[in-house]
């Protein structure tokens, strides 16, 4: 079935496009892009005043299924993603059981195919049960549909294991995603180590715990000539390491979350457990450096690290709460408001970081671009739409989001996945 998107401002960084064009979709693919396509009875959407972007890809999501369906399921997570403007999400392997074998990968894909509103791409673990000891059968996992490898949350501490994983990943043309943390340095820390952790009497996670592992990974990736992607970059010192490595053409890419860009450790004065995540909220100086690294190109990707937890799990003492916050439904408005509408980055750079680059890093060939033959995954944005974050309106099962009540300008209006409307806001303009 054909679908025509008319009068939108098409922003596609992969081709350098930024102009008013119509986009014609058929059988799940984009078949034509040009000014004024005549509709001839096809269903059309009037996107005038909206940005039409290649579908957004969140490459760092926890869907919790299988095993922790009280927090989130593939279906609810995908629904939250669609509402948040995403057409594809990549889910981390720290489920129960861990996605360390073909069976789990296939389960996730079959659940997603049956019921999910968006494309779901499983990330498999680097090591069995994320124990950091034995490598998973990576070729088999790729064959089953895994798109990348990560021991997110339980990062590989043994450098020899990481070296072998990188070496092996090379033959599979895949990417290793690392949550960079030296668990001995972060120990039992619960927030960024510094003045505020001392003030609040909370145990600190030092910046060095991230910096040392980023440094290690760069060295190992360079030696193996393999691709390493640094998850949720949070500290200034690590940015400098990545910037320098990129100059030397090391295959390193990096992502940043909105909470690390816009929130700082000082807020933990309230001991609000929705401010507890790992890596933790860092200092003001770090957030400034991260914003700078977004504008200068050191950071490649925006991701959420969407980490849903139940209300009960978070309604406890700060020390006892699990790490992680819900993010799929707030990331796009936050970035549009704080970066695009405030003219810190142009819309094209935003789309590049949330669609083009994740597609390239995860090797999703027909995604992250608007051209004839590409998958008909599109995100339609209204840069002027004002929203107030309300966790009770979330499609996600969880509510653990620290942006409750924030007034933001800029939001997704419609998410189109494989040529079908996966989400549409109430102000749908159908003609």
């Amino acid at each position, binding site marked *: 079935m054909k679908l025509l998107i008319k009068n939108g401002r098409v922003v596609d960084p992969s081709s350098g496009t930024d102009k008013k064009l119509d986009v014609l979709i058929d059988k799940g693919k984009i078949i034509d892009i040009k000014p004024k396509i005549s509709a001839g009875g096809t269903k059309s959407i009037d996107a005038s005043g909206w940005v039409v972007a290649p579908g957004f890809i969140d490459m760092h999501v926890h869907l919790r299924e299988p095993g922790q369906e009280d927090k989130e399921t593939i279906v609810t997570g995908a629904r939250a993603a669609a509402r948040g403007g995403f057409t594809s999400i990549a889910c981390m392997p720290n489920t129960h059981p861990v996605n360390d074998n073909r069976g789990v990968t296939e389960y996730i894909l079959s659940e997603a195919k049956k019921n999910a509103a968006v494309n779901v791409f499983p990330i498999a673990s680097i090591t069995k049960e994320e124990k950091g000891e034995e490598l998973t059968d990576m070729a088999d996992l790729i064959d089953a549909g895994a798109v990348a490898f990560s021991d997110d949350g339980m990062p590989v501490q043994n450098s020899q294991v990481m070296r072998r994983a990188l070496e092996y990943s090379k033959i599979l043309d895949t990417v290793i995603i690392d949550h960079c943390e030296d668990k001995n340095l972060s120990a039992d820390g619960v927030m960024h180590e510094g003045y505020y952790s001392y003030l609040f*009497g*909370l145990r600190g996670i030092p910046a060095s715990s991230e910096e040392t592992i980023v440094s290690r990974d760069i060295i190992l990736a360079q030696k193996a000539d393999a691709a390493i992607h640094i998850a949720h970059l949070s500290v200034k010192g690590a940015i400098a390491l990545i910037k320098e490595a990129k100059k030397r053409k090391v295959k390193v890419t990096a992502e940043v979350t909105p909470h690390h860009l816009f929130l700082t450790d000082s807020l933990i004065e309230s*001991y609000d457990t929705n401010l507890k995540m790992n890596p933790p909220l860092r200092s003001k100086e770090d957030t400034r450096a991260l914003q700078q690294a977004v504008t200068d190109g050191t950071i490649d990707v925006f991701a959420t690290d969407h980490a849903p937890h139940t209300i009960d799990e978070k*309604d*406890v*003492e*700060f020390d*006892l709460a699990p790490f992680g916050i819900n993010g799929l439904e707030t990331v796009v408005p936050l970035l549009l408001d704080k970066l695009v509408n405030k003219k810190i980055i142009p819309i094209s750079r935003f789309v590049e970081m949330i669609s083009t680059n994740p597609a390239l890093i995860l090797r999703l060939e027909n995604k992250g671009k608007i051209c004839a033959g590409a998958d008909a995954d599109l995100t339609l944005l209204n840069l002027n739409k004002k929203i107030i974050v309300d966790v009770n309106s979330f499609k996600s099962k969880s509510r653990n989001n620290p942006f409750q009540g924030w007034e933001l300008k800029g939001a997704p209006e419609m998410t189109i996945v494989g040529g079908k409307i996966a989400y549409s806001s109430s102000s749908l303009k159908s003609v």
Partner: protein
Amino acid sequence: MAFKHKHLLGIQDLTSSEITTILDTAESFYEISTREVKKVPTLRGKTIINLFFEPSTRTRSSFELAAKRLSADIVNFNLKTSSAVKGETFKDTILNLEAMNPDAIIIRHSCSGAVLYASTFSRSNIINAGDGSHEHPTQALLDAFTIRQEKKNFKGLKIVIVGDILHSRVARSNIFLLRKMGAKVTLVGPPALLPLEFRKFGVETDFNLDRAVERADVIMMLRIQLERQEKNFFPSVREYRNLYSLTAQRFRRAKKNAIIMHPGPINRGVEISTDMADCAKSVILKQVENGIAVRMAVLYLLLGGKEREAID
């Protein structure tokens, strides 16, 4: 002057004049504990819960005696298990106790911020008896009461706090209080237990106790937790003692009228030698004695406020 706070969560929330009010009120209660009949009817009919999630002898019994000397009813709960161990959550524990209509809940908890968290859903007056490494306001107040007894005035007074600053709620509450009252604070300890960012609290730091002792009017020793050694915060008790124990030899460098304090419980022969703990310059037991008057003042100001205003 009415005391405006519903809770006592930390020294950070108090102004210097509120601190003075507490100390002055404690002054007026001090004498009750020396009477033959150690009881006044001030808080008759009030119910107070002592809710301790960490072991404590001094603080718990001090609050208990303070409440009893004001004629309040007090119930003690010593819970070894917090919500870290499976069972009832901290929140449910408080809500259940609250269903029994207490007026105040005194809480000690191993998690920083747990007491502030309790105040967000509790309708009782909440009193912090120590939360993690965060605050221990009544300890700082009784320390201040003792210092004022000995030194009259805080302005310009040089206080040296020695030991495990990083993990110490006593150190934090004392730093906040002493800074508000105009004293000059120097922190002393090994780097792992005394990060330099503590200077942002408006204090000086020194790694050398011999040097710091010379300037001190008050030397406040902190208990060193022996398990810190396991995590290499310092290499051994022997090394710690050699560098940071208050011994007679070190104390000789101090001013003539310098006093020695310790919040207890003391590790004799570790952070303080026995002869120093027991010497004439030591006010360690006076601190304990003063604790009752200060806690009576806190309970009175938080719980007895309404009647008092009516009388005024």
